């Protein structure tokens, strides 16, 4: 089995439960019509950010995409302020200015979810430049989907990180679809294989296997911290929901979705924990606690104040002092 120690697995399982619980609650609220904007659920993909974030410190950075709730929860965001942001309250992470698709917290190294597919890739490369310039041991992780790898931003971002040996880990969540377009249609080669084109390591793992993701990320993060350059990790996984909440997903068969549900990443960790001495009753208690946490977080998030229209244009610019006296 993997390099992970048994006592580390339980908190990681809890993180996976929290992502699933957050997405479930957010989906329900969105379907009730109380959350504005778009919502993209990452249910089914929980093992990826949890396995990666296990190796990240608070001062490491991540860039995310439109499907970012799991990435940011695993990096330390609190559900209450996330819900507040989804509700567009001033108590949200972005004070109600960003919403789900732009959620950010720089104090946690979360450069942000992103509405532009591929945009986070070169931004993570740039974070790598600042770590190199400042001589820190920080790393940047960029999360993106199989759809993003066909953008110019992906190609250019990976190439730059490669030629300058930047401390970046590129994590592709290959869930086999970019909206309706199958990954196999959109490219003639696999995703991990593309690393060879940039002269960097590329690995493919079962993204629904927490331990496999954990190991691959461990090696990639260690390599980045040592100054040996970037790695591309392709995590094969699946989103159970439509592209966005409300998308009926007419481009996928029921059988395909069902088959992937059977590869649910959570029970795999659950049974590992049971085999390693954690009782089913303890796990049930944990699950109930997470569900309760999400209910309360959503309630408190919703209770935050609505933004003041007078303040609508705050923060367009930073104060310029002398230069803009």
């Amino acid at each position: 089995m993997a390099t992970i120690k048994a006592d580390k697995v339980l908190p990681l399982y809890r993180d996976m439960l929290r992502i699933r619980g957050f997405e479930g609650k957010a989906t329900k609220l969105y379907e009730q019509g109380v959350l504005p904007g778009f919502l993209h659920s990452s249910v089914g993909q929980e093992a990826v950010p949890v396995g990666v974030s296990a190796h990240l410190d608070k001062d490491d950075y991540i860039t995310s995409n439109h499907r970012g709730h799991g990435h940011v929860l695993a990096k330390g965001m609190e559900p209450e302020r996330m819900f507040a942001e989804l509700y567009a309250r001033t108590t949200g992470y972005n004070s109600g200015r960003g919403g789900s698709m732009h959620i950010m917290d720089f104090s946690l190294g979360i450069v942000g979810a992103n509405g532009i597919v591929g945009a986070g890739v070169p931004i993570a490369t740039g974070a790598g430049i600042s770590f190199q310039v400042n001589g820190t041991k920080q790393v940047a992780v960029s999360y993106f989907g199989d759809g993003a790898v066909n953008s110019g931003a992906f190609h250019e971002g990976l190439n730059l990180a490669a030629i300058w040996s930047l401390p970046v880990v590129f994590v592709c969540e290959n869930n086999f679809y970019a909206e309706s377009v199958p990954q196999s249609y959109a490219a003639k080669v696999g995703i991990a294989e593309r690393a060879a084109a940039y002269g960097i390591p590329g690995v493919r793992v079962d993204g629904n296997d927490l331990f496999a993701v954990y190991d691959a990320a461990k090696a990639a993060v260690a390599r980045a911290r040592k100054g040996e350059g970037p790695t591309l990790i392709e995590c094969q996984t699946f989103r159970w929901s439509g592209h966005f909440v409300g998308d009926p997903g007419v481009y996928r068969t029921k059988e395909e979705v069902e088959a992937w549900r059977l590869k649910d990443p959570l029970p795999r960790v659950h049974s590992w924990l049971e085999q390693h001495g954690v009782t089913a009753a303890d796990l049930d208690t944990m699950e109930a606690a997470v569900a309760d946490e999400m209910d309360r977080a959503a309630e408190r998030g919703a209770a935050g104040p609505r933004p003041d229209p007078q303040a609508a244009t705050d923060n367009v610019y930073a104060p310029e002092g002398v230069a803009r006296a």
Partner: protein
Amino acid sequence: MRQILMREALREALFEEMRRDPRVVVFGEDIADPMGGSYKVTLGLSTEFGAVRVRNTPISEAAIVGAAVGAAITGARPVAEIMYMDFLGIAMDQIVNQAAKIRFMSGGQVSVPLVIRCQGGPGRASAAQHAQMLEAWFAHVPGLQIVMPSNPADGKALLKAAIRSDNPVIFFEYNGLYNVRGDVPEPEEDALEPIGKAKVAREGKDITLVTWSGMTRMALQAAEQLQAEDGVQAEVVDLRTVSPWDKSTVLASFAKTRAMVVAHQAVRQGGVGAEIAATVYEEMLDLVDVEIGRVGAKFSPTPFAPELESAVVPGTADIVRAARDVLSRGGRF
């Protein structure tokens, strides 16, 4: 006349033009069946016309537009779809340095018969990267045509005209119009509207409201309100083509009313409204009693929170207020 939705009118235009001209090809993200486009405008096209003429693309905006340019200058008539206007930035070089300039740079050897369809705009809490109105970026570039219809009949007739045009067209569909229903002529009529020609959507003698796309409906509502509450007869000019724009229709209306408000959903600063206002001033310098106002979004990205979005993006009330301002400045109110 029959009534259909904007999205149906646009879809009919694509079907009719693809049937008429085998050189018309369509490509973009998620446009093929069963998806039929993120907003279902291309639904059914790939089933009828097949995978050579209707292609799903990877998420590769620069290549979508670049390939459309290449196809256009070598014998095809591509209609490329970019899912949101906000994503045109990724394809900017192909639009600005290639599509817009190839005819000119070649000394007129070749034309670029290309349509880039895109949609978006404010009003749905889509936040800063999915709600921009960026027509002013393109209005600054000679060689491009920017078409922004406000109703199903114009949408259909102008999309057909755009596909037949030998110039690159950025064809913008305001998202809030897709489910708007309106009179549309039967397909047999093959109705076309000329690119570059505005339409007087409502006649009036007191003030001219110049507008386009989603804002046209609000201007028409504003005109009703001005009539009801102030007895002011506002003339609404729906520009329809934002570049090159129809000066003569705007000037003719202004010569009659001597007062104007230009209203758009795009950010006011540097917006197309500034160009129109300045042009009217220049052309009408010898008239003394002219008053012009502008309505546009505040100088801010679009916030996520609905109450902030509506504070930034203008609506009917802003047009009414601006019209009253203009008329009272001119001492006519």
